[in-house]
C-alpha cells in the first residue's frame, strides 16, 4: 500500500492507461460478440433467403420475409395476448411483492423467519417441475385456457419479495419514524416513503420480469388451447419445423418481430435501465 503510494506518479499513470486500454478493448470485443447474432438476424431478415449464408453488400433488400412471417400465425392477436399477460403479471407482482416485502422488512410477527425462508426456498425450485401441479390447480379454479392461468403461478414471486425486502431494509428508520410522527398510516408510509425510494428496484425488477414472461414458452403452450389466449412465443414455434428444413430468413424476421417491442423499449429507456440496475445492485 504505502510502497504504491510512494511510487512516482508517472509510471502509475502509464499503468492506469494500459488498464484503461485493455478495458476498452475487452468491452468492444464483448459488445461485438453480443451484437453479432442480432446483426446476423437483421441481415438475413431483410434479404432474400438466397443470401442467408453469403455476405454481399449490395444484395437486394426485401420486406417479404416479414410478410411471410406475419402471415404464418395470427400475430396481431398474439401480441395483444402477450401484452395483457405481461401487464397482468407485472401488476400482480408489484402489488403482492410490495406488501410482502414491507411486512418482512419492517414488522415483527411470529414465524417471520420461517415464512421468509419458505419464500427464499421458492428461488431454488425450478418452475418446470411444478407444471402438472399448477395445471391441476388451474383446472380446479376453472381457469385452463385463460390468460390469468398463464400469469397466476408467477405472481407470488420469491425473487421479487426478496429483492424489495432488501431494498426496504436499506431505507433509514428515521424517515419511517418521521412519517409516523407526522401522523401517516402504515400503508401511507409504504406509499410515501418506501415505494418512492425503491423506484430503481421496481424498474429493474420490472424489466427482468417483463422480458422473462415475454419469452416464456412451455407453460403458456401447455395451459392454453386457443388463439385468444396464446402469446407470441407459441406463434413463433410454428417456424421451428424441423422436417421441412429451416428457413433462417423467415425465422429471423419472425424473431425480430416478436422481440422488437422489447428491443425498442430497451433502447428508448436504456439510460434509466442501466442507472436503475446500478442503484438496485442487480448485475
Amino acid at each position, binding site marked *: 500500500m504505502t510502497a504504491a503510494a510512494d511510487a512516482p506518479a508517472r509510471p502509475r499513470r502509464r499503468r492506469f492507461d494500459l488498464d484503461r486500454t485493455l478495458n476498452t478493448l475487452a468491452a468492444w470485443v464483448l459488445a461485438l460478440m453480443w451484437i453479432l447474432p442480432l446483426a446476423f438476424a437483421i441481415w438475413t431478415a431483410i434479404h432474400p*433467403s438466397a443470401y*442467408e*449464408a453469403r455476405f454481399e453488400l449490395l444484395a437486394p433488400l426485401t420486406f417479404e420475409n416479414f410478410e411471410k412471417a406475419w402471415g*404464418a*400465425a395470427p400475430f396481431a392477436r398474439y401480441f395483444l395476448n402477450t401484452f395483457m399477460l405481461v401487464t397482468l403479471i407485472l401488476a400482480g407482482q408489484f402489488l403482492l411483492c410490495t406488501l410482502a416485502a414491507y411486512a418482512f422488512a419492517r414488522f415483527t410477527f411470529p414465524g417471520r423467519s420461517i415464512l421468509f425462508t419458505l419464500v427464499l426456498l421458492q428461488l431454488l425450485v425450478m418452475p418446470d417441475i411444478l*407444471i*402438472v401441479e399448477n*395445471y*391441476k390447480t*388451474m*383446472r380446479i379454479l376453472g381457469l*385452463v385456457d385463460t390468460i390469468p392461468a398463464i400469469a397466476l403461478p408467477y405472481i407470488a414471486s420469491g425473487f421479487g419479495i426478496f429483492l424489495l425486502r432488501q431494498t426496504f431494509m436499506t431505507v433509514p428508520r428515521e424517515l419511517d419514524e418521521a412519517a409516523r410522527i407526522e401522523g401517516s398510516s402504515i400503508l401511507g408510509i409504504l406509499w410515501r416513503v418506501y415505494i418512492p425510494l425503491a423506484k430503481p428496484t421496481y424498474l429493474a425488477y420490472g424489466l427482468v420480469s417483463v422480458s422473462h414472461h415475454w419469452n416464456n414458452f*412451455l407453460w403458456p*403452450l*401447455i395451459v392454453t*388451447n*386457443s388463439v385468444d389466449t396464446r402469446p407470441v412465443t*407459441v406463434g413463433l*414455434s*410454428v*417456424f*421451428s*419445423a*424441423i*422436417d*421441412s*428444413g*429451416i428457413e*433462417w430468413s423467415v425465422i429471423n424476421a419472425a424473431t425480430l418481430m416478436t422481440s422488437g417491442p422489447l428491443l425498442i423499449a430497451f433502447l428508448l429507456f436504456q439510460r434509466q435501465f442501466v442507472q436503475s440496475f446500478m442503484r438496485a445492485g442487480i448485475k
Partner: protein
Amino acid sequence: MLKSMLMKAVATATLSTGLALGTWASAQAVELQFFFPVAVGGKAAETIQALTDEYVANNPDVKIDAVYSGSYQDTIAKVITASRGGTPPQLSMALSADMFTLIDEDLIVPFDDYLKSDEDKAWLEGFYPAFMENSQTGGKTYGIPFQRSTPVMYWNKEAFKEAGLDPETPPATWEELVEFGKKLTKKDANGNVTQWGVRIPSSGFPYWLFQGLTTQNDVILANSEGNKTNFDDPKVAEALQYMVDLSTKHGVMEPGIIEWGATPKAFFERQTAIMWTTTGNLTNVRDNAPFEFGVGMLPANKRRGAPTGGGNFYLFKGASEEQLTAAADFVKWITGPEQAAKWTIATGYVAPRPDAWETEAMKTYAADFPPATVARDQLEFAVAELSTYQNQRVTTIFNDALAAAITGQKDAATALKDAQAQADAILAEYR
C-alpha cells in the same frame, strides 16, 4: 284477466321448454379436443385445421376443437400434463415411436373397441403394413397412421452431369454410394472440399437415418414388444462403421456431426451433391432447389431398407364412450382417400393407405411430380422406427453412442456395446 295470465304462463312455459330443449340438443353435440403437433411449418397446421372444419361442417352433432401443440416433444409434454391434471384431450397426434411410452403412462386406449364391425376391421387392414408396425402391439391397435414419413435420397442432377455420371441413375448400393461420392467430391486449389459427395445428417436424432443403414444391413434395432434392443449386433456395428468410413476412410462426407436443419440449405447451395432426409422435405426442395434434382430410394446393401417415422392418432383415457366413438369416426374420415390426398399434396407426407393414391387428385399430382411416389414405393422395404418402453431414454443412449463413434471418441463396436448394456438396464423391468 286470470285466463290471459294463465295463457301467458303457459305460453312462457312452452317457450322456455322449447328453448331448454334447443340448448339440450346442442349440448348433446359431442365435443372433442384434438391436439396436433406440426413438424413441417405453417401449411400443415392450416391443412389440419381446414380438414377438421370440413368434418365439423358435415357432422353438426360433433364439435372438434383442434389445438396446435408445438413440436412432437411439446405435444407429449402437453398431453401428459393435461392427462395428469385431469383434462386429457380425447384425441391427439403424437410420434408413432411414443406408443410404448403412452401405454406405459397408462394414458391411451386401443382403437379396437371402437372399430368392431367387419367393415371397420377391413378398413384397418387397408393401411400400409410398414406404418402399422409401430401402431400395434400385443394384438391391439393403439395408433392410426396419418402424419407419416420415411427418409429418401435427393440428388443434384447437374452435379452428376459435371462428374460424368448419368444424372438419372442414383447410387443403388453402398459400394456405388462410395464410388459416386468420390467422383462427386470436389476440391479447390488449396485442397479444401467445396462440394461433398453425400450428406447424412447426424444431429439431434441420428438414430433415424442410421436406422436406414442398419435395415439395409438386414438387422432390426428393437423387438416389436419394445422391451429388447439389438444395439450390439455385429451387423449394427458394421453399419455404423460404414457411416464413419464415409468421412474418415473414403472422404466423401463432411466429418463430425452434421446438422439436420441446415441440410436442405447445404443441398441447395451445392455443398453436397446427395442428401438423405425425410420425404417431409419434398415440397421444400421442389420449391427451392435452384437445379434439377432427383429423388430415389436409399441405396441397398444386404437388402433395401428404411425406417418409417412421424405421427399417429391416439385415443385418450378419461373420455366418454360417445366421445371416443366420435373420435374414431373422425380418424376414419380424415385418413380417407380424398382427405389423405389433400394432406399429402400440401405437405409431402406419405398418404397412409393405398386408396388415397387411387384418387384423381393424387394421380394428377404424381403424374406432374413423379418423385412423390418414391417414398410410397419404398414402404415395401420399410420397418418400424426404433421404439421401446422408456423411448426417450433409450434413444438418447443410442444417439450418444452414434455421436461418440462419429466424432471418433469410441470405436463403433465399443460404443454400441456400452449402449446395449445401458439399454438393457432400463428395459429389464419390462420383460
